[in-house]
């Protein structure tokens, strides 16, 4: 599933989540909506309904369907990847619209064709409300600290802490070392080149354990300038993908690589086989 269309804003940020700011009445009378602001088809539908003060229990399905389709039509131009969920909803809307046109038999007490959709919309709206309550609860909780929370002194070296792994485990792992496993990526053998992907992996590894890492620390093991250049390029690439942000307080001071929205990024990368993590 595509994560790129989810807005950066938090669910509790009503304005951001509903995309209200970006909706304007277009010249053709349709609502112009910035699809990237929506977390999915329900979010978009809910926006259309709330934006126009429509009674959610009596949705004018034909109008809403037209508006939804008009908005969804714009997806294809720039992002086919995440269109599936929206197209599913479009199909559902068209189906409901068709059912609404059929004569209904009062005596059989058939359910309103819109009922399931209404339930989903209300439920989704509630989930958003709960999300914002969770944010508030989280913020309140974060104001309390347990004993010993702050590390005022640098921790001892990792090597000072005992390790549990046994030689038997090493041997077992060794038994699994197998040169004949298929490689799904081309490999350079001591060409001396430094690949951006390696440095991307290095940065990501470093950010697994902490929220930030100094640029210089990443370079420490190497003397060659090329490592600096390529690590910087890797940082820029990750920054472009919003996995990290780069921060430097003054010229020539330490460059910090700060962890960004990794979940978002991970979702975008989902499917790509990533380098194995470590302990």
């Amino acid at each position, binding site marked *: *599933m595509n*994560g790129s269309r*989810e807005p950066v*804003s*938090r*669910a*509790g940020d009503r304005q951001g*989540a509903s995309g209200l700011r970006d909706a304007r009445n277009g010249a053709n009378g349709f609502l112009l909506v910035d699809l990237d602001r929506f*977390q*999915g*088809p*329900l979010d978009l539908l809910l926006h259309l309904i709330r934006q126009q003060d429509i*009674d*959610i*229990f009596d949705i004018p399905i034909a109008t809403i369907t037209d508006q939804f389709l008009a908005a969804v039509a714009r997806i294809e131009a720039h992002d086919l990847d995440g269109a599936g*969920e929206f197209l599913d*909803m479009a199909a559902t809307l068209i189906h409901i619209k068709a059912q609404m046109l059929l004569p209904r038999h009062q005596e059989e007490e058939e*359910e*309103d064709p819109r*009922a*399931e959709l*209404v*339930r989903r919309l*209300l*439920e*989704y*709206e*509630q*989930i958003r*409300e*709960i*999300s914002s*309550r*969770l*944010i508030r*609860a*989280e913020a*309140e*909780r974060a*104001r*309390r*600290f*347990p*004993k*010993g929370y*702050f*590390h*005022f002194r640098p921790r001892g070296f990792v090597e000072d802490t005992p390790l549990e792994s046994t030689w038997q485990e090493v041997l077992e792992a060794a038994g699994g070392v197998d040169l004949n496993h298929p490689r799904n990526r081309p490999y350079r053998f001591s060409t001396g080149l430094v690949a951006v992907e390696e440095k991307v992996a290095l940065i990501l590894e470093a950010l697994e354990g*902490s*929220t*930030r890492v100094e640029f210089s620390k990443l370079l420490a093991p190497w003397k060659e300038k090329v490592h600096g250049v390529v690590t910087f390029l890797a940082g820029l690439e990750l920054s472009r993908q919003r996995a990290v942000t780069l921060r430097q307080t003054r010229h020539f001071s330490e460059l910090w690589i700060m*962890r*960004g*929205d*990794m*979940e*978002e990024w*991970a*979702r975008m990368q*989902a499917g790509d086989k990533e380098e194995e993590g470590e302990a």
Partner: protein
Amino acid sequence: MNVSQIVEGVLFASDAPLKAEEIARADESLDEDLVEEAVRELRALYDESGRAFQLVELGEGYQILTRPELAPYLERFDTVPRLPRLSGPALETLAIIAYRQPIGRIEIEYIRGVGAAGVIRTLQDRGLVEVAGRSEGVGRPLLYRTTRRFLEHFGFASLEDLPRPDELPVLLRERGSLEEILGEGNGAP
């Protein structure tokens, strides 16, 4: 050492919430009731004597935490890197799991209208959500539930502490009956 001192010592030395039964393990003379009583005493004592910390009920147990009012002072020492905040999709998914647990991925995706596999994995990595078992349904899909850590992280003593359904619109109270919901809804607006 009296009961109150033992309980206080154990709570003080712990870096995570402890259940009464866990605290009681400190000594044969203790039981859950004695611990609960000591907890109440200590809580009152800390509050009355204006201590900088409080005895809080959290994550199905008890923990001593600083008062929220101290946050501005303590934040000046913020040397512990904090985890990045949860994204909107992650929070929504967490909310669904919290109220509907145990729940499978397909149901979550239906409620949110978008895929949830990546977000669920993130929540698992953060220790907020865990596998609760498998559904009896076709393919026996995995079911998820929230963890004790979820309660601790959001400051809830137990799942009962989640915002009550009656403070919320109708839907989460009932899993099923659409007719009822529509009935209530139609009557209301």
